[in-house]
């Protein structure tokens, strides 16, 4: 597809269950970001992948959160033992840059997670 694709668009899960959120970046984009957007809050940085380099995981809020990026393309964000405070929109973005700052990043429409 032409843009960043995320799935599922909506997910309702029970507290304590694990969830996986998928991101398919724009073809050829080497940089990939995950952000979390909670109601009334800004975008909270979670994790950043750049090519084959070690990811910047400094934004992951707890060890229940993890992410991987296979083959430098598709990424999966996993939340284990979900809690109600994990309810948010999870946004994925990609960029064609090679580690340089100041580049535009392109967002998907997000995955809306509700933990009940």
């Amino acid at each position, binding site marked *: 597809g032409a843009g960043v694709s995320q799935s599922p668009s909506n997910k309702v899960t029970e507290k304590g269950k694990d969830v996986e959120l998928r991101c398919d970046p724009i073809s050829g984009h080497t940089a990939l970001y995950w952000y979390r957007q909670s109601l009334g809050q*800004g975008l909270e940085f979670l994790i950043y992948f750049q090519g084959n380099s070690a990811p910047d995981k400094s934004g992951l809020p707890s060890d229940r959160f993890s992410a991987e990026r296979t083959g430098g393309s598709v990424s999966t964000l996993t939340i284990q033992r979900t809690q109600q405070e994990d309810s948010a929109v999870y946004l994925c973005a990609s960029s064609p840059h090679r580690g340089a*700052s*100041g580049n535009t990043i*392109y967002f998907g429409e997000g995955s809306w997670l509700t933990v009940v």
Partner: protein
Amino acid sequence: AQSVTQLDSQVPVFEEAPVELRCNYSSSVSVYLFWYVQYPNQGLQLLLKYLSGSTLVKGINGFEAEFNKSQTSFHLRKPSVHISDTAEYFCAVNPYSSASKIIFGSGTRLSIRP
């Protein structure tokens, strides 16, 4: 560390009126500056960005922003808004030295009244 402050969480304006959305930032290092827009039920998209050169930056849909280094501000303006400008607007900074650190403000919801 960097931070971005958008003081106005909501800004209601009448159609065809001018608007200014405020953004102030704090950073000990030089940063690039961005405005992103999120239309209802859509992902964020770039509105404009300041990298270097002229401090007045023009973006899409008639928006412009001015970088003021002394006041550490990057306010967004439009002289005449339309109903279609209804959206949430996010200011962001990105340090020169770190591609991964893009820090966003909490957003300003612009609502246009006919």
